[in-house]
């Protein structure tokens, strides 16, 4: 057993610390992700993952986490589910990835349904709907601010990213075109632009 070997080693040789990347059990993975999923009120899930997996348990280095975050943001779908899959897969293989996603997603699903049963039962009370409507409006502000921040960040690459963002808006909102073809076409345009930029910068 590597742990026993490490213990007996460290009793003989005092200097090297315990293995830098210990591996969690499937049970611990499940508990950690379930806790993050059930308690992350107000979002910021990837921040919680960072705190647990990098700072607290040292299962991942900062660089490993950041590259996992990047790939999970490139892929479509809920980013945090992709991130959990990536981390679980890295630590415990395919089954670890599956366990991590299930643990992250299931508890909040049950919580959200229960919450909506309670609130919508009270939905006939006018101020509860008003409260939810105000909360939704603020949440839309949050969504918009993330979009604006993204536009500001990609402006460093030139004007083409801004043109793409505006094209999404024109296509979906003003022209009311269907989502899937609009995104597929613009993704292709984006890849071509990014490719040309990369080859030009290399020269």
């Amino acid at each position, binding site marked *: 057993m590597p742990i026993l070997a490490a213990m007996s080693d460290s009793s003989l040789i005092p200097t090297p610390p315990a293995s830098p990347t210990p591996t969690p059990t499937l049970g611990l993975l499940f508990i950690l992700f379930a806790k993050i999923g059930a308690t992350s009120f107000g979002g910021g899930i990837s921040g919680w993952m960072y705190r647990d997996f990098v700072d607290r348990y040292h299962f991942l280095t900062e660089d490993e986490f950041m590259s996992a975050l990047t790939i999970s943001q490139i892929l479509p779908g809920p980013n945090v*589910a992709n991130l959990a899959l990536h981390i679980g897969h890295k630590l415990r293989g395919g089954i670890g990835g599956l366990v991590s996603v299930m643990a992250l997603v299931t508890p909040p699903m049950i919580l959200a*349904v229960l919450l*909506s049963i309670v609130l919508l039962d009270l939905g006939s009370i006018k101020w509860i709907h008003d*409260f*939810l409507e*105000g909360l939704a409006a603020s949440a839309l502000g949050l969504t918009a601010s993330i*979009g604006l921040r993204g536009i500001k960040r990609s402006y460093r690459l030139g004007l083409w990213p801004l043109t793409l963002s505006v094209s999404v808006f024109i296509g979906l909102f003003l022209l009311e075109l269907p989502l899937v073809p609009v995104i597929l076409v613009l993704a292709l345009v984006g890849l071509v632009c990014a490719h040309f930029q990369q080859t030009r910068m290399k020269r």
Partner: protein
Amino acid sequence: MKTSNIYLDLIAVFAPLSLISVGGGQSVVGDMHLQAVDIYHWLTHAQFIDLFAISRAAPGPGALLATLIGWQVSGWQGALVASLALFGPSTVLAYFVTRAWHKSHDKPWTTLVQNALAPLASGLLLTSAIIILRSTSGGVTPWLLAAVSAGIFWRFKKLNPLIVLCAGGFVLVAARLWF
């Protein structure tokens, strides 16, 4: 493309969104609204807003909105089908990309793909927010609230969003009481 089977309808709506939601689940909320309210008439706009607010205030990924819509449409089975449809395809894709990723260590393409898709995500997030705000009948107050909280989130990056969201709720309750 309505079918007679409610579960097939749920899959037809959410599974494509799973693979097209670059930048996370929030980017396709606008399309969810279009499909659930305008095309399939599963919900009224007011119900959609309630569920959206709950999905944002509850812990966990905001994509739980799909779970809640499924639940509203046909109970626990609907919730399960909608969740699997929204989380399934993207998770399967992520699984295979993750496997390939852990095998190869030369990753110059990630920057390229990220640079290419980030502007789409930004555009989708903005458009989603505006599409849903447009269909609210509550006058200018929700627009004002959204603009003010966008400003707050822009300025204070580390703020726990739940504080601002709940404040938004209370502001609207107060506004409707007084005006």
